[in-house]
């Protein structure tokens, strides 16, 4: 692999890790919105009493899902910050290895040219170690993202149930259907954002 290809790869890796952080930030916001929708639904269901009896347990579910998503995304955020550090580290170790190798080639024939060989080898080992560490964290992150998809999928099922329950809530039907709609939209956004994160990560893994 030549230097230009590696530099390009490093750049796209930086951009990828940055875009993951941005997507996750958006997921956090949406999860907070779900939490608000759950609180709103609870208040409506309380006012509607008997007419929204079936809706009341659903609001607790929605709230739980929002909480679970927030917790998972918090963990992922920590991991994605670490991934950024690892990207910097990988960039530095790879750059040092390339430049040391270059120096070793230029020093062929120099009186002490051979003294650099051990440093080139050490730099190579360091680069491989940081690349391995990076890959391991990417796979961890992929697993965590898969975990976030689960509450998002469950939220969509709950939204469908909510619509049915809302249809029996008389004059509260419209408000409760709006809640169901916002949960459904939010779940869809989370699903799409997380899916984009996973695609970006998969591209990094393939590029490696």
């Amino acid at each position, binding site marked *: 692999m030549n230097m230009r290809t590696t530099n390009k790869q490093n750049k796209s890796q930086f951009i990828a890790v940055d875009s993951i952080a941005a997507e996750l930030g958006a997921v956090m916001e949406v999860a907070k919105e779900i939490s608000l929708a759950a609180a709103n639904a609870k208040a409506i269901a309380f006012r509607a009493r008997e007419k929204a009896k079936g809706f009341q347990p659903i609001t607790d579910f929605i709230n739980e899902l929002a909480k679970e998503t927030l917790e998972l995304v918090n963990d992922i955020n920590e991991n994605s910050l670490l991934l950024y550090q690892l990207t910097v580290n990988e960039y530095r*170790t790879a750059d*040092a290895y390339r430049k040391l190798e270059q*120096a070793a080639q230029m*020093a062929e024939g120099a009186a*002490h040219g051979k*003294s650099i060989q051990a440093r080139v080898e050490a730099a190579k080992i360091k680069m491989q170690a940081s690349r391995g560490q990076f890959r391991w964290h990417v796979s961890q992150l992929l697993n965590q993202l898969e975990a976030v998809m689960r509450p998002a999928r469950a939220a969509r099922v709950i939204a469908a149930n909510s619509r049915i329950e809302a249809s029996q809530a008389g004059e509260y039907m419209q408000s409760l259907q709006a809640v169901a709609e916002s949960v459904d939209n939010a779940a869809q956004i989370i699903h799409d954002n997380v899916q984009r994160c996973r695609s970006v990560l998969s591209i990094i893994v393939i590029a490696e």
Partner: protein
Amino acid sequence: MKMTKIYEGSYQWIAYGRDQNKPDNIIDTNQYVVRAANRCLILDPGGVELFAPMLAAVLNHVPVEQITDLFASHQDPDVISSLGLWDQALPKAKLHAPALWEGFLRHYGCDTIEYVPIPDKGGVINLDSVELQIIPAHYLHSSANFHVYDPHAKILMSGDVGAALEAPGAPMFVDKFDAHVEKMRYFHQRWMPSNQAKRAWIERVRNLEIDMLAPQHGRIFKGDDVKRFLDWFEALPVGVAI
């Protein structure tokens, strides 16, 4: 890269510069090495672009394990942006650099090299039996700036003071001082901010015995040209962009 021994005694001073493979759009720099019995100091090791050719050139004189010390006169990229690479190449080395710039210089990457902060008043670097003096040159041009004086070899490594903007492949030594002046004027007037700092430095440096004044850019001054340079610099108004 051109390599010139500028002092040969029980230890050596070697100047490196005029790298033919350097990209055209980066300023040319001189690097200096003090090679003692078992240790070696690189003064202003240079930018990232220069790391590989510089290391390869130094290996003509020193095995890598004997490159034990680095010195950075100030924080500029042409002086020390290669730090992150030296950090990987020389894990046991020391970097002598201004205390004021430590938090800034570490941005280049300095995890394994030991940062030895130089206080404002200066200090010394002991290299086996060679003692080098670190001379304050604050505001010339950087707010925390140092030069290195070797009282035995009578060499002053003067960082940006004495620098000249030269055509590629220029000789390493000043031969015609009067002709050289025009290559230095803009550099000093524009990069040096303070006449007060300039006067304080000249007063300090006039007390030193100097056979060679070795800047980081351009040519080295020898013999009477050192005094000529100090006189010229003293008369030159600097900080002219205000």
